[in-house]
């Protein structure tokens, strides 16, 4: 799930922090989406109440996932769909490969699916000699650029229009103007032919409805509809937790998702498909496959501390309020899922604290994510929980362990600490200039490299207290 095999956090951060355009683009994208959400949830009113209903629905489904999955599978098969259960990404990839092998298709159109990113499907299909055409405009752009998404909702927000025009140029055979209408028109024309001629399409799934065997896709461009209307064979990929019991719960979740993700009341195309086509239908797939992926979601289910993270509806609201994401963008995390939710689920899906050990620290624990989450996942608490797990597994640096050991000892015993602080106050002039602390050994230098510190007060409050107490007693007796 990483961008490289050896992920160098410092190099990635370095790259991100030096990229002025990326940082401006990240601010622009997140501000736009965050403000959109604020406006449209204010219009709706009672947002807290809606969040609670959303939490209730998702909790219920997650707590009864076996029951609802069973129901979903039954209904999909009853309708004539084929269900494939994949425990691992490898199994999921294999299922898709087999379908292509069986039909001999050499080209496929894809609409947005985070699952296909999670399992790294495209490179495998391409190696099999299959042309994979991403049809979501942003995914199309990053496919040509050969880059991973930088944001879960607006995956190409890190690209300038000039860069996009340059990416399109070899395909167009001539330079393109960089205005939005020109670039959009180019994508529309390029993909049109593919839409109308492709024999197979791969789609994602925002919510699967257990009661009816229905898949819901929330899109705006029309490519999701194209991919699920014209090809004769369709494959839908879904994470196994993305279920709602019936259309009733779906209406609540759609309201939460659209408003949280893009600041819309509802997306342009909310498509509820129950494939395959019915007898006599003029379009829609004749053959439909639903690939349901576990990839350690069942492990998360069995982990009460983290189970709440399965409520996630992949709206991206947490990205849009995260002050860390704002400064570094999605690529710096190194994972398919970035932002606050990415920090939480990546070490769990990948079951790997070594490779993904840096993620839980990409947070100042400001809790803006928890506040923004439409299904009330306590993201910042879960981030601390990961740090807790790392400590318990002995995965934190030795120096840090020592510091906190002494912290526990001294900070629970004020008298001991009082002596330490007095000592610090005595020696701090060595680190000071102009009345401020400006330097020091690591880890103090991590602060002083970019900031000064006020000096430790010469007299601690507890030193002052005995006399202050007397003064206050006098005041009480005298004037008020």
């Amino acid at each position, binding site marked *: 799930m990483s961008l490289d095999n050896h992920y160098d956090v410092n190099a990635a951060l370095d790259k991100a922090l030096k990229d002025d355009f990326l940082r401006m683009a990240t601010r622009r994208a997140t501000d736009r989406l965050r403000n959109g959400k604020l406006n449209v949830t204010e219009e709706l009113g009672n947002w807290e109440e809606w969040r609670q209903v959303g939490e209730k629905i998702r909790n219920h489904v997650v707590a009864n996932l076996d029951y609802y999955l069973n129901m979903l599978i039954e209904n999909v098969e009853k309708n004539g769909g084929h269900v494939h259960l994949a425990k691992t990404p490898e199994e999921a990839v294999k299922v898709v490969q087999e379908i292509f092998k069986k039909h001999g298709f050499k080209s496929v159109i894809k609409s947005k699916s985070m699952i296909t990113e999670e399992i790294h499907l495209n490179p495998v299909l391409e190696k099999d000699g299959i042309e994979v055409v991403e049809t979501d405009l942003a995914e199309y752009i990053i496919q040509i650029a050969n880059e991973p998404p930088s944001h879960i909702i607006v995956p190409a927000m890190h690209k300038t229009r000039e860069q996009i025009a340059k990416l399109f140029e070899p395909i167009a055979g001539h330079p393109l103007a960089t205005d939005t209408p020109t670039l959009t028109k180019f994508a529309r024309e390029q993909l049109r032919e593919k839409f109308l001629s492709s024999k197979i399409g791969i789609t994602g799934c925002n919510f699967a409805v257990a009661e009816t065997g229905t898949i819901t896709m929330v899109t705006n461009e029309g490519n999701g509809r194209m991919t699920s209307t014209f090809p004769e064979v369709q494959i839908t990929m879904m994470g196994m937790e993305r279920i709602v019991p019936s259309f009733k719960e779906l209406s609540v979740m759609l309201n939460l998702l659209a408003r949280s993700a893009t600041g819309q009341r509802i997306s342009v195309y909310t498509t509820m498909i129950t494939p395959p086509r019915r007898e006599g239908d003029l379009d829609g797939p004749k053959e439909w496959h639903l690939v349901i992926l576990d990839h350690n979601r069942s492990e998360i289910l069995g982990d009460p501390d983290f189970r709440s993270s399965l409520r996630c509806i992949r709206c991206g609201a947490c990205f849009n309020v995260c002050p860390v994401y*704002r400064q570094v963008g999605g690529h710096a995390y190194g994972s398919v899922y970035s932002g606050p939710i990415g920090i939480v689920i990546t070490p769990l899906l990948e079951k790997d604290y070594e490779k993904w050990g840096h993620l839980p620290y990409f947070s100042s624990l400001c809790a803006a994510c928890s506040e923004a989450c439409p299904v009330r996942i306590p993201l910042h608490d879960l981030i601390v929980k990961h740090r807790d797990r790392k400590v318990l597994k002995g995965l934190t640096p030795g120096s840090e362990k020592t510091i906190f050991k002494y912290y526990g000892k001294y900070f629970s015993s004020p008298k001991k600490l009082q002596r330490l602080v007095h000592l610090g106050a005595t020696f701090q002039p060595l680190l000071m200039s102009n009345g401020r602390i400006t330097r020091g050994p690591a880890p103090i230098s991590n602060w002083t490299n970019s900031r000064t510190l006020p000096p430790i007060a010469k007299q601690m409050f507890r030193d002052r207290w005995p006399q202050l107490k007397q003064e206050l007693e006098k005041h009480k007796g005298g004037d008020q």
Partner: protein
Amino acid sequence: MFPELGETMAKIFTKLGHSVDFPEDQFCCGQISFNSGYMEETRRVAKATIDAFANSEVVVAPSGSCIGMIHHNYPTLFKDDPVYGPKAKELIDKSYEFTQFLVNVLKTPDLGARYKAKVTYHPSCHATRLLNLKDEPLTVLRNIKDLEIVPLPEAHLCCGFGGTFSVKMPRISEAMVAEKAKHVLDSGAEILTGLDMGCLMNITGYMEKHGRSIPAMHVIQLLGKGM
């Protein structure tokens, strides 16, 4: 580190007719080790804090993040502890951040303070989000006569302190505080105020090192100056 906060609080409560005590055994709420995942060490420190205030009727702190730590995280810390679980609950029920106490409990947001200055208020993340703080700090500020409060652009953004975060992830922290400092300076305020010295220290520390700076004063310090 900031003894004047304690002193001002003590003087304010005395003036309002309450008796003030400072249990000497207190030191730290434990958020620093909690946030780094060191739960055993946190429990050690937290128990000392809980014990220190066992006989106090009401506990008021000049720090939103400390009270936030107690209210939001002590339940989790002691959920399996039959002795300290209930004790923690007792402390939670009787502890307050200063402005919340003043506005919601004592119901005396107006202390007759007067201080002429143009300030902007930074809503510290832990105070605001963990304590569900609403208008209390601004209410207290608005009651200081002659005080002009100007809005802080993008106030909701974290300043990058996050306790250990500022030292563990210094480059990201720096990027965050750089933006926050810019917004503070753009506000046109003469003084930066807030509820958490950690945040204020972080922001002024950055400003001082980078040329233009305005001083920071905790809300309590503003009150102290004005009374």
